Each structure stands twice: as C-alpha cells, then as structure tokens.
C-alpha cells in the first residue's frame, strides 16, 4: 500500500460513568467508525471502558516542550492563587 497506510487515530476512553475520557494510545483505521471498532478490540478487551472517542492524530495540535517555560511561567509566579498563600489565625479552624 505504498503511501496508502490507514491514517492514525488517537484513542480516548471513559473507564466509567463520572470520569473523563483519558488518552490510552493510538490505532490505524480507514475512517472514524472503524477507528472506534478497532479501539474497542485493542483497548477494551477487559471492560476497561464504557465510551470511546477517536480523533485523527493529524488534527491534534500540541504545545512544544521547548516552550514550556514561557508557556507555563505565568502560573508559577502567581502563588496567591493557592489557599496556602493566606495567613489566618489558628483559632479559625477549618477554612
């Protein structure tokens, strides 16, 4: 199949009701329906999921690890976003 390999799909599985879909790996399939079926066979042989999402891998746009410092720095410097930043008297109990 020179140049005609089935496209790659990223697979996300919801393991049970109430939890997020979580990335588990990838599979090849000709289209989205087949991707769901293949993901079922490859990633849920032991009842690991109740719902499957598939996304064509080429559609995923990811951040660059080389830019991580600049990208995530604004959060690191804002420690006042955490409750432990604030001083309250001992007597106040749980707050």
């Amino acid at each position, binding site marked *: *199949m020179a140049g*005609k*390999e*089935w496209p*790659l799909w990223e697979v996300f599985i919801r393991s049970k009701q109430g939890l997020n879909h979580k990335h588990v*790996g*990838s*599979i*090849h399939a*000709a*289209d989205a329906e*087949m991707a769901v079926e293949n993901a079922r*066979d*490859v990633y849920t*042989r*032991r009842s690991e999921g109740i719902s499957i999402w598939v996304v064509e891998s080429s559609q995923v746009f*990811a951040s*660059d*690890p*080389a830019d991580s410092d600049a990208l995530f720095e604004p959060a690191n410097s804002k420690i006042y976003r955490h409750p432990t930043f604030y001083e309250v008297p001992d007597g106040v109990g749980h707050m």
Partner: protein
Amino acid sequence: MKEQNLADLEAAFNEKLKQDIRIEPKDWMPDAYRKTLIRQISQHAHSEIVGMLPEGNWITRAPNLRRKAVLLAKVQDEAGHGQYLYSAMETLGFSREQSIDDMHTGKAKYSSIFNYPTLTWADMGAVGWLVDGAAIMNQVPLCRTSYGPYARAMVRICKEESFHQRQGYEIMCTLMKGSEDQKAMAQDALNRFWWPALMMFGPSDAESTHTQQSIDWKIKRHTNDELRQMFVDASVPQAQLIGLTIPDPDLKWNEERGHYDFGEIDWEEFKQVVSGNGPCNAERIAARVKAKEEGMWVREAAMAYAEKKKAKKAS
C-alpha cells in the same frame, strides 16, 4: 543547531533520566536513544505478532471448548500487545508499515523462541508457562523504562500477561495428573522449550553489545544474565512442584549465592536461530508476508470506501 544549544538539550535530557522523569514523544532526545528505542520496541512488537503463529497452530485442535476459548483469547491478546507496541514505536516518528517491511526482509528481528515448532498440545502448556513467564520477567522492569509511551504500553501488557502464564502452567499441571503418555508429553515439551526459553534473555552480559548503554539510558533496568537468573530461580520450583524435571544435569541450588547454578547455554544454536537458520524462521516470515499481501486488497478497499464516503458527505 548551535553547539551550545545541543549541549544544553543533552544536559536537560540527562537530568531528566537522573531524576527518573519520563521522556515523552515531543521532548528532545539524542538520536542514538531514539534509534535504540525504535529497534527495541519494534523488535518487541514483531515478537508479539509472530508469537501468534506457534499458538494459532493449535486453536482448531484444542482438546476442549474451554481450552479453545482461552487459547483464542490469549492469541488475541498477543495481537493487542503488538498494536500497543507499534503505536508506542510510531510516537518516535517511525512508520508502522516500514517497520513491518523491515521484519519481512529480515532487517528487523523478533524473539528467536518463535522459530521453534509447536509439535504437541503440551507445547501450549510449555509456551504459556515458560515463554510468557520469561517475557514477564523481561517486561515487568520495562514498566519503569525511561520512554513514557513504551512504559505505558508495558503496564497494559503486564496486566494481561499473567493470565497467559497461568493458563500454560495449568495445562502442564493437568497433563501431569494424567496418564503416563500425557506426563511424557508434558516432559517432552519442557525438554524442548527449556533451553530456548533461557535464550530469550539474549546473549550473556559479556557478549551483549547494547546492554550498558541501554542501562545508562534507563531503557533496560536489569542485564540479560540477571533476568535469566531470576527466571531460572522462579521456574525450577514450579517444575518440581508438579513432578517435571528440568533438562539440565548441571542444575543445582547454590546455597552461597542463594540462586540456582545452571549449565552452559548452546550459544551456537542461539546464533543460528537469530541469524535465520532456526527450524521455523522461513515458515514464520512466509506466513507474515502472506498475511500482509493477501490482506492488502481489503485494506485498500476500506480506504477507498472511506474516501468515497467522505467525498459524498462533502458534496
């Protein structure tokens, strides 16, 4: 890339390894690290796929429906394991198709154990017990390997693999409770698979060309000889418990070392099988090539159908 920049990247990479922080697909990594992983993961994936053949051989001849359902589930798991591993390998930027072609031309290897034939039903016992047992010994430490996608694939595989070993050992137990012929069949399977199973851990540490670098990179966590010793120590009591004899006159417990001493492996046989001259090398590759070629029209038709549907939707 500037030299200074490269040195910084390499230092950051080494620091991550030192702190046991996993390397992820988009992180910078040395070319040699990437190549080593591609070689190891694809070899591992090919082993899972070729590993379906010796057992697939017995699905239609399993002695009862329970054994047949189990064997079918096990072989399906092996296909799944191959898929997890190919998918981990693809995150390194190497195509699955290329990797499979490399196996078919002999450029990429798979585990030499699958080049031995499965002659009797007892071989399904020996393969599950010893071959999957050896694979587990190899794979458990790989759950902590430094490359994230490989480690995650190994976690899934290890969870599934323990049923494989137990079902094999159960077959051996059942045969050992049977007639004299059945006991002899189990012993014969052990005789044929024991030494090839020990060879699964690869060349001895003194001969292994990749071990030290792979350990420095935390791809491998134990040397071949360490894993082989762990396997012998675990398997000998299991054999004794059901009345099987390990086919090694030099095997004896060494009180001082706290391990079993065992005889010399026939490295010439290992070399021959790895280099393509084992009893089933040609047959295994021929089966894989046939599967690829004869399935080609199905894959092409599925792709053409998907494209047609997409075009129809767009219009």
